[in-house]
């Protein structure tokens, strides 16, 4: 549940950054212009696609998996949580790379990107906790 809430917040955050990037919003509420510097740098796109759009897709996937893991038989299985952890791990790695670029290459800190990085780390942590908990609650396969 916590992961779904965090993923939904992340989805809106990345939607905001993506809509700004494609010119659908007027101004990025960022304060010092650093978000624009990061977004408009050469690293603001990957393979011709705005980086924020990868965030939209990633958070949407994490939201879908976390919601799915709450229902039916999936709620009793470990692997939806494992899938969420795998998705979030990819997000953590990608956010780490982007944070490195901000610090070492672009020399500007986009606060929304940092919030997104914190969110994806939190989702990863939540997924790991959920995975461990389900492992505890679920009896070993051999005894079933």
């Amino acid at each position, binding site marked *: *549940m916590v992961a*779904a*809430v965090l993923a*939904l*917040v992340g*989805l*809106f955050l990345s*939607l*905001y950054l993506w*809509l*700004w990037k494609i*010119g*659908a*919003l*007027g*101004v*990025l*509420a960022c*304060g*010092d*212009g650093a978000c*624009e*510097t*990061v*977004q*408009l*740098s*050469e690293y603001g796109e990957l393979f011709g696609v705005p980086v924020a759009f990868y965030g939209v897709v990633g958070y949407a996937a994490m939201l879908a998996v976390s919601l799915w893991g*709450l*229902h039916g038989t999936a*709620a009793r299985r470990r692997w939806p949580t494992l899938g969420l952890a795998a998705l979030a791990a990819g997000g953590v790695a990608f956010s780490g790379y982007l944070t490195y670029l901000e610090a070492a*290459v672009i*020399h*500007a800190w986009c606060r929304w990107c940092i919030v997104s990085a914190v969110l994806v780390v939190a989702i990863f942590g939540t997924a790991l906790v959920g995975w461990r908990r389900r492992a505890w609650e679920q009896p070993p396969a051999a005894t079933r």
Partner: protein
Amino acid sequence: MAGQQLKWFYAALGVIVVVGIAALVLARRGGGSAAVEVAPAPVAVGTFEGHVLGSDSAPVTIVEYADFECGACAQFAILTGPDVKQRLVAAGRVRWVFRDFPLDGHRNALSAHLAAACAGEQGRFWEMHDQIFFNHRRWVSERRPERPLRDIARGLNLDLSQYDGCIDSRRLLGQIEATKRDGLARGVQATPTFEVGTLRVSGALSYDSLQALVTRAEARAAK
């Protein structure tokens, strides 16, 4: 999962969706930070006012503090600039003043401001201004931006010997730094910042947002 618990969970998600959509709609409508009142900015006699575009008799003056390396400034120049020139400046409604505000953290900004100022010596500031922004990616991450900036100057058919002399002498650096100091003294903190008459606003404004401020300033000027 308990049904009641799930109901509350989906209610919370619904609230987040509503708040998120409302925030996006507001962001779409807003178009910039809130305009704040500032004192008029008379320029002392003998000091450089900035690079001016448009008629001196235009009812509204807009002063833009910008950094050539700033992404939002490039965004504004590329997306909104053409509309501003055509529909506000050429129409005689606005006199536009560009003031240099190279940010400290932007290592290539000063080179770009110097290149534009040197083009200005040849009466070509605005063409250089546009090309520097339109070709942002060509120079902004370069270790030595002077070469791509010179290529831009060559593309504009500037007198390159005069341009090189201006760049090498760095004689316009003092003017750029003085303009920035003046902006700092006036409380400018971010780029781009616009002073529309006595209204100050920051961010890569949309044309509609800027036009609304011009209309307000025109109404004040008419009183």
